[in-house]
């Protein structure tokens, strides 16, 4: 379902950071087009 999709990742400094999510998404066949780690507060 994710395969072929373009993915924008909004990670959280106090939760799950962007690069950790990116590692996961790279195993799905989707293309990560943006990754950031923001402070959600």
């Amino acid at each position: 379902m994710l395969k072929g999709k373009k993915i924008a990742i909004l990670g959280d400094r106090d939760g799950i950071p962007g690069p950790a999510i990116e590692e996961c998404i790279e195993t799905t066949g989707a293309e990560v087009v943006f990754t950031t780690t923001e402070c959600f507060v």
Partner: protein
Amino acid sequence: MDLENQQRIKDLAEKEGAENLVVILGGAEAEASGLACETVTNGDPTFAGPLAGVPLGLACYHVVEEEIKSEVEAEVYEDQISMMEMVIDVDAITEEVKTYRDKYSKYKL
């Protein structure tokens, strides 16, 4: 959601096509994750940023939701996410993000 990132999401939706773009969240709290989901689906509820009044309707999920987790290689998920999964309230986050997705997303996985 930070104003700079709102602009990036807006630009990406135009460039890639809203139907092709999926936003994946890593927020530690349900409320903040819900707010981010609302922002990329219905527009910025605080009317402060570039997505104010811009209902992109993007597909938006938290990384711990089953729709995403089930597609990730188990070993990688275990290494990258499982530690945090133990300390965040997965049920509350899932419920909050799903509420906004069901209400405002025009696209689903």
